[in-house]
Each structure stands twice: as structure tokens, then as C-alpha cells.
């Protein structure tokens, strides 16, 4: 199968991939987002667009993807199963493919309780695993979940999933990744890595199971902008581990923002040394302007130009 996207090409040709992240706003005005996208265009291979992250209503991932494509940039559309049933998920996927989206990241989504519509229904008609498999079946077998055939085959799409080495039961996490691969995941992005020791332990088991050869593993990296941001992630973002040493280190630094960037750069450098890590996903939440600096200082610039 031909690579579906630049991201897939990059990963499959053995280059260490870099993806960025764009969080759509709580309005239909995406001018700032477009600026961020434009500013990091030479530094990332593709852009994740989050899907109502932390269950907060925002411009849709697919809507923003349309704009990125118009700008000549490559989106990775995040699709959670929290807000849409299988009819809508499959329909949205077809719609996104119809205007050129080729990378999809299939995930469960934070519970609606965390967002700005806590009284909404959590749909969860299919789970993330089933959604990965459904996309694969649509692409490879041309069938919908219900068994009906697509009228025309789906072009190649690159199927992504998420993995969280910082969630429990820790011993089960590599096996969960194996299950996602069996379901159809071709690349996985991890939760933000702050606890590198735990990440390395997870990777050891991943390698032991040979999973790094079956899936492209992209490590999640988030530069910490402030002590407040670190504490917020530590206490309020589900499935995160932010070690206390990290906070102490930033506290002790004269220029805290600079230290945050430095830690992100060091994290990427360490990730590059780990066998089986195929790229990084830089999630500079509300701090998009530092992405180019991080990518450059991590030695990942310029990005390889693939034909």
C-alpha cells in the first residue's frame, strides 16, 4: 500500500518524525490557530488537531483540517468516540477523507464531566479499540461497522491511536498497545512524557513484545510554561504523571520558561536515543510559538523534504 500521507512517508522512510498540535478555539475565529500553523510549518511534518479536548466545546477538528489543507498543510484529525455514535463517526471520517484528510488519530476522549458541558450524554457507542478496527475495516475491506459495503473503496488512510504509559495497570499497558496494533493502529502517540524512567520501562516491554516493529511510536512532549501549568497537569489532567523533581527544577531556575523549553529539548534528545521511538509529538498547549525553537534545538531541523 502506498503511504497515505507525508507523516506516514516520513515514519516509514526511517526519519525521526515531528508532529505539532493545534487546539481549536472556543469560537469560529481560527485566525490565531492559522498563524500558529503557519509559524511552525517548516518544523513539523503534520499537525494534530484536537477533538474538543478535555470535553470542551471548540471548533471541530475536521473543520480546522479543511482550513489546513487549503493552506497546504497536513492535518492529523483526532477523533474521539465520546461525542459521536458509529453513524456519525463513520460519516465524519468519510467527509474528512473526501477533502483530503489522510491521518486519523482514534481515541476515547476525556469524560464529559471535565468539560464545559458536564451534563451532556457521553456517547461511547463504540470504544477507541473498536473505532480503530472500524477505520481499518472501512479502508481494507470496504465495509462499514454494520457490514454494508462502501460504494467506493476508501483511499489509503494512516491510522493512529494513543498509548498512555503513565496510566494503570502499568503491566497491562504494553499489551493494550499490542491490542491496538491488532485492531489496526499504524502509529501511536503517547501521553506527555515527563517521567522518562517510567517511559523507558514501558518501552523495554514494548520492545520485548516486538511492538516497536509493528507500529510507529511517537513520544508526546510538552514544554512546561509555568509552575502553575505543571501543577494543573499534575492534579487535573487525567492519566498524567508530572514528577515533583521536575517542578523543583523549574522552581529553581531563574528563567522558568527557558527551563521549560530546555527540559522539552532534553526530553526529545533522550527519546531519540531510545530504540523503537520513531518520532515526537510536540504539544505546546497555549505556547505554540516555542515549537520551532524546541525542534531546532533538539536537532530536528530542517525537516527532511520527501518527494
Amino acid at each position, binding site marked *: 500500500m502506498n503511504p497515505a500521507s507525508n507523516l506516514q512517508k516520513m515514519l516509514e522512510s526511517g526519519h525521526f518524525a515531528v508532529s505539532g498540535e493545534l487546539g481549536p478555539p472556543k469560537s469560529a475565529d481560527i485566525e490565531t490557530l492559522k498563524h500558529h500553523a503557519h509559524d511552525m510549518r517548516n518544523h513539523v511534518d503534520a499537525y494534530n488537531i484536537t477533538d474538543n479536548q478535555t470535553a470542551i466545546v471548540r471548533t471541530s477538528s475536521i473543520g480546522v483540517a479543511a482550513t489546513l489543507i487549503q493552506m497546504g498543510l497536513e492535518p492529523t484529525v483526532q477523533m474521539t468516540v465520546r461525542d459521536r455514535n458509529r453513524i456519525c463517526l463513520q460519516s465524519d471520517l468519510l467527509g474528512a477523507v473526501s477533502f483530503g484528510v489522510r491521518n486519523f488519530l482514534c481515541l*476515547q476522549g476525556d*469524560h464529559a464531566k471535565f468539560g464545559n458541558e458536564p451534563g451532556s450524554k*457521553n456517547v461511547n457507542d463504540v470504544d477507541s*479499540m*473498536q473505532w480503530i478496527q472500524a477505520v481499518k475495516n472501512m479502508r481494507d475491506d470496504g465495509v462499514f461497522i454494520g457490514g454494508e459495503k462502501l460504494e467506493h473503496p476508501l483511499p489509503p488512510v494512516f491510522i493512529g491511536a494513543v498509548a498512555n504509559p503513565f*496510566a*494503570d495497570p502499568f503491566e*497491562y499497558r504494553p*499489551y493494550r498497545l499490542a491490542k491496538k496494533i491488532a485492531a489496526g493502529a499504524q502509529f501511536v502517540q503517547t501521553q506527555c512524557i515527563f517521567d522518562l524512567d517510567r517511559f523507558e520501562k514501558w518501552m523495554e516491554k514494548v520492545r520485548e513484545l516486538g511492538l516497536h516493529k509493528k507500529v510507529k511510536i511517537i513520544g508526546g512532549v510538552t514544554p512546561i510554561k509555568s509552575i502553575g501549568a505543571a501543577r494543573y497537569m499534575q492534579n487535573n489532567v*487525567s492519566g498524567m504523571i508530572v514528577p515533583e523533581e521536575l517542578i523543583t527544577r523549574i522552581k529553581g531556575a531563574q528563567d522558568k520558561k527557558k527551563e521549560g523549553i530546555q527540559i522539552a529539548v532534553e526530553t526529545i534528545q533522550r527519546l531519540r536515543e531510545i530504540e523503537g521511538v520513531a518520532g515526537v509529538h510536540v504539544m505546546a498547549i497555549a505556547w505554540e510559538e516555542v515549537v520551532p525553537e524546541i525542534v531546532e534545538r533538539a536537532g530536528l531541523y530542517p525537516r527532511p523534504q520527501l518527494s
Partner: protein
Amino acid sequence: MIVGERKPLAEIAAMLKPFGKVCVLGCGTCVTVCLSGGEKEAAETAAALSLLWQKEGKKGEVKTGTMLRQCEYEYIDDYAARLEEYDAVLSLACGVGVQAMTTRLPEKIILPGLNTKFMGYPIEQGVWKENCLGCGNCVLDLTVGICPITRCSKSMLNGPCGGSQDGKCEVSKDVDCAWHLIYERLLKMDMLECMEAVQPPKDWSSSHHGGVRTMVREDVRLESGQ
């Protein structure tokens, strides 16, 4: 059992405002056992309501009664004559009871005194936990007796999400991660392979999502169809 919780008195008083003579009617089954709508709670509710009406200077009369099961026509029929004198009945049964009463006694106003919470059981004195959503297609064989449809906040069928930490659900530190429990139990029983296969999307048509459910058992039906 069906677990209920009595509505706040102010809400009950507001719904009873147009009525003068009211019967607070307990139900002798599930809601008696879960201490929310039995004989004792009906008496307590009636006393509190009487006191409130007195304070407010409202004219009226509140009496109490208890029916063994408000969800079965034969019990309703036996009790019906005793409800004739009332303008309204405040039922302390679950939503099933309130509706069975309404259907059988269409001339009567039957009001809900409880919020029907869930199907579950007491895990300790005074603590009830939801365990079954009545999805119509039980998967407890695959998950060693722990229901992920009900007890996983996202009703996942293929293992724990990334929000599971220290055995707890991302939704609350007070909620156990169902998949953590399932994992631990499978590990103990040397059955972890149960988690390997990708479970296909669930057919929710057997649940409420398929529309209102009716079950017909021809083998036990009377010829008259009643």
C-alpha cells in the same frame, strides 16, 4: 434491586401545591430495602409534609399507606379502593411503580416522590452502588463478573482507557476503574487471555437505545393475552 432516593421536601411540596388531600404511598419491595420509599419513609415524608403545610397555613390532609408492590396490577387492584378519597398520590415507588399505577388508575394523579437512581446493591450499610444497566446482552462471562458497560464510565469493552490511575477512574477518586478490577481478577485467575481479542462494537439495540423494550413469553401468557 432498584435503588431510589427521596426527592427533596421542597420539590415534593411544590408538586403537591394544587392538591388538598394527599396519600404518601410507600412500596414494599426494592425501595423499602434501600430505605428510601417503604412504610417508614412514607410516614416520615407525610409527617414532614404535614408540618410544612401547617407552617405555611395550607389547608389539606396528608395520610400514608404502603402497597406491597406498586409495579404489579394485581396489587394495585387490591389497593385501589383505599386511594379513592385522595386528590393525588405521592408514590414513593420507583419510576416503574409510578407508571404502573398511572396506567392502572388513569383517573388518579400519581406523582413521583423518589428519584429512581439505578440497579445496584448495598456494598455496605448506607452505601449503594450501581451494577447493571440492563443492556439486554450480558457480557459478565467475558469480564469475570464485573460489568464494564455499567462500571466503566465510558462503557468500554476492550480494556482500560488512559485515564485509569492507581486503580481509580478519571471521573472520580471515589470510583474504581472497572477495567483495573477486571484485569486484577483475570490475573489472579490466570485468565488474562480473555482481554486479548478485540471485542466488536456492541449491538445496543437490545438496550434502551433500540427503543422501548417489551418482552413477550408466549409460554406463560394467558390465552386472553392478559
